[in-house]
C-alpha cells in the first residue's frame, strides 16, 4: 500500500470507512497500480478479500504484493483471499467446452448475452463464507476487488448486464455485509459518436453508484518521463454539504510504490 495515498484518502488499515464503493478508472493510462495498493491495504487490514483477477495471472499480483509486503499465496492458503483466475480458466471454457461446476463463474464466456449471474453467485458465496471455519480465525468485513471490469465488454457482455452485476454486488457486499468494493474500469477516449455499448457509458454508470472515484489520466500537457500522470480524487459527500470534494494530484510509480504530489511540485520540475 502507498502511505501517501493513505493520507490523501484519510484511511489506514486500522481505520477505514466501511460500506465503501471505490471506483478506480483510467483513460489512456494504467491505473492498475491502485488495485495493487488496495489489495495490499485490505489484506493488511485483515479483511476477507474476494479478488476477481480477470486480466492477469495470480503470479503477477503475487509478485507485486511481495514488493509491497504482503504474501498472496499465504493469504490464499489461510483462506483470507479468494482468487478467481480468469485467464487460465477461460481457456477451458472456450476451447474445451468445459461445463463443469468450477467454470460456472465464467459462464459469460459461453453465452455473453445471458449476463453475469454465475459470476455474482461466485462472489456471493466467497464473501458470505464465515470465518469460523477451519482455523477459527474470523476475518474483518468482506472486500470485493475486480480487475478489470471493462474487459467483460470486450468479451461481449452488455453494459446493462455489468451494471446489474455491480448493483447486486453493492447490495450484498456494501449494504448487507458492511464491506467494501473496489472496481477498476478502463475507458477509451471520449468519442462524440460513441456507440451505446462503450466503456464510457459503463464508467458513467459506475460513478453514479460509487462513493469514491479515483480517475487516472495522462498529463494534459503531454508525455513526461518523470510524472506518470494525474489522478483525480472525487468524494461523494453525504450529509448537508452540497458540493462534492474533488482534488487532483500528480503521481509517479516506482518499483515499490507510488508517490503522489500536488500539481507542479514534482521533483523533476522543482
Amino acid at each position, binding site marked *: 500500500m502507498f502511505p501517501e495515498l493513505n493520507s490523501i484518502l484519510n484511511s489506514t488499515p486500522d481505520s477505514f470507512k466501511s460500506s465503501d464503493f471505490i471506483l478506480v478508472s483510467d483513460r489512456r493510462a494504467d491505473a492498475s497500480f491502485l488495485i495493487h495498493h488496495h489489495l495490499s491495504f485490505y489484506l493488511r487490514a485483515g479483511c476477507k478479500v474476494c479478488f476477481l483477477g480477470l486480466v492477469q495471472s495470480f503470479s503477477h499480483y503475487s509478485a507485486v504484493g511481495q514488493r509491497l509486503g504482503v504474501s498472496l499465496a499465504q493469504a490464499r492458503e489461510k483462506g483470507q483471499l479468494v482468487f478467481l483466475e480468469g485467464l487460465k480458466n477461460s481457456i477451458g471454457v472456450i476451447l474445451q467446452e468445459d461445463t463443469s461446476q468450477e467454470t460456472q463463474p465464467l459462464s459469460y464466456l459461453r453465452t455473453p448475452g445471458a449476463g453475469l449471474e454465475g459470476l455474482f453467485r461466485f462472489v456471493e458465496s466467497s464473501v458470505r463464507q464465515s470465518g469460523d471455519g477451519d482455523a477459527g480465525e474470523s476475518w474483518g468485513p468482506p472486500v470485493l476487488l475486480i480487475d478489470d471490469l471493462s474487459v467483460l465488454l470486450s468479451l461481449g457482455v452488455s453494459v446493462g448486464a455489468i451494471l446489474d452485476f455491480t448493483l447486486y454486488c453493492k447490495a450484498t457486499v456494501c449494504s448487507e455485509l458492511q464491506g467494501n468494493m473496489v472496481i477498476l474500469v478502463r475507458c477509451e477516449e471520449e468519442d462524440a459518436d460513441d*456507440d451505446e455499448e462503450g466503456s464510457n457509458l459503463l464508467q458513467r454508470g459506475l460513478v453514479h453508484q460509487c462513493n469514491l472515484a479515483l480517475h487516472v489520466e495522462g498529463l494534459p500537457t503531454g508525455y513526461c518521463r518523470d510524472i506518470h500522470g494525474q489522478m483525480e480524487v472525487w468524494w461523494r459527500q453525504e450529509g448537508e454539504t452540497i458540493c462534492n470534494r474533488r482534488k487532483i494530484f500528480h503521481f509517479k510509480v516506482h518499483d515499490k510504490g507510488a508517490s503522489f504530489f500536488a500539481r507542479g511540485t514534482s521533483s523533476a520540475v522543482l
Partner: protein
Amino acid sequence: MAAPVRGMIGSTSIGNTTSFQKKTRSKLVSIPGTRPSVQNGQLLVSSGVSSLDYVIGGGLAVGTLLLVEEDHYDSYSRMLLKYFLAEGVVCGHELFLASARDHPDDIMQELPSPIVDDVAGMKISEGQSQPSDPENPDTMKIAWRYQNQPKVQTALASSVRFGHYYDVSKTMEPELRQAAKCHSFYQLQETPVVTASSPLPSPYHSLLKSIQTVIRKEGFDGSTPQSKVRNVLRLGLHSLGSVLWGDDVCCKDNPAHCHALTTFLYILRGLLRTSLSVAMVTVPSHLTQNRAVMGRIIRLSDTAIALESFKGSEKETNPLYKDYHGLLHVRQLPRLNCLSCEVPDTKDLAFKLKRKQFTIEVSSHQPLSALSPQHTPNSHPIALRVHSYGTSPNPNEQRGVKTPPRLLTSAVSALKTHSTVDTADQRVGCNENDTD
C-alpha cells in the same frame, strides 16, 4: 543492475508468468536465445530487431503478446514479422506461423538471412555439417568475450547470443530454415468447423485449438517430463482482423462479430501466460472504423506498437523526415510482475529499414521553425542515435543518452552526443544509406 533475486517459491511451475530466477541454481536449463530482464527478472527473447528490443524494454517477455499495428501497405509490419521468425530460427526456437493471405511457406521462404559473423557462435542443430576450419576456435572467442560481463550474462554462457542482425537483401539458407521446427496454419486450407456453442467464429476458434494442440503436444506448458530440453515457442499471427479471417471488424461500422477478435486475444493471452511462448500479432488497424475497438485490442495485448510509413503520404517529401521510412508509435508497454513499467525517454520515434539493420531512432521536432537556414542537414536534431543492445556489449549501458524530459533542450543534448556515438555506428557498418 543485476537481475533481482527474489525469495519466491519454485519457479518450475509454468503457471507463473515464466519468471526464471537465478537462485534455483543448476536445476533450470537455460534456454538459448533468452536472457533475464534487468528490470524485473522476466525471461526475454529478442524480437529480431535490436533497436526494437531496446524500445520495448530489452526484449519480448516470454508469455506475452506483442501487437503490431500495420502500416498501410503492410510492408514494414511484415518485415518485422519476418525478423521475429528469423530470430526464432537462428536461436533454435520453435515457430508457429498463421496467416490467411499468403501461405506460411511463402513467408518462411522470404526470411532474411542472418549476418555471418553473428552466426558463428550459434548452435546449429545436429543435422548440419559445420565446416571445420581453424577459424572456429577464434570465432567462438567472440562469443566468449561476453563471459566477463556481470552475472546477468554469465549464466547463459553456453547459449546463443541475444539479438542478431539480418541482411534483408538475401534470404535465409534453406538448410538453416529447415533446421527449425515450424508449425503452420493456413486459414484458406482449413475446413470450417461449426461451433455453435462458442462465441468465437470458426477461423479464430480453430486457430486457438491448433495453438493449444501444439503447446500441449510439444510440451511448452510443462506437461512433458523434465528430460526434454526446454524451448520457447514463437507464434506469428499475420493480419488478424482482416476479412480473410472471417472477421468483419475491419470493414464494417457495426460488425456482427465485434467481439471476435477481442475474445480471441483474451484467450490467446491466457494460453501464452500458461506456456513458454511469445506471440507477435499484426492487425490492420487503419481499416477499423471504430477507434474504441482498437483501444480494447491494445488493452488486451501486452506490448503494442504501431507503424506509420511515409510511403504515399505527404510526409514523404517533408524535409524533417527525409532520412526515415516511417514513424513508430509505442502504444503500450507492459507491467509484468511489477508496479512500474519501462518508461521510454521519448515517444517520438522514427524507423528506417536499411539493408543490414532496422533502425529506430528518436526524431525530435524543433518547436521553432525547423526550416530556418541555420539548420544545416548535418546538424539536424534527429541525429540522436540510440545504442541498440547488439552493438554495446555492456548490458548496463542500455541507455546511451539521458535526455531530459523537456523538448526544448533535447535538441541541444542531441547535438552534444552526436559526435560521441557516431564512432559506434561505423563499427556496425551503419554508414550505408542504401535500402534493399
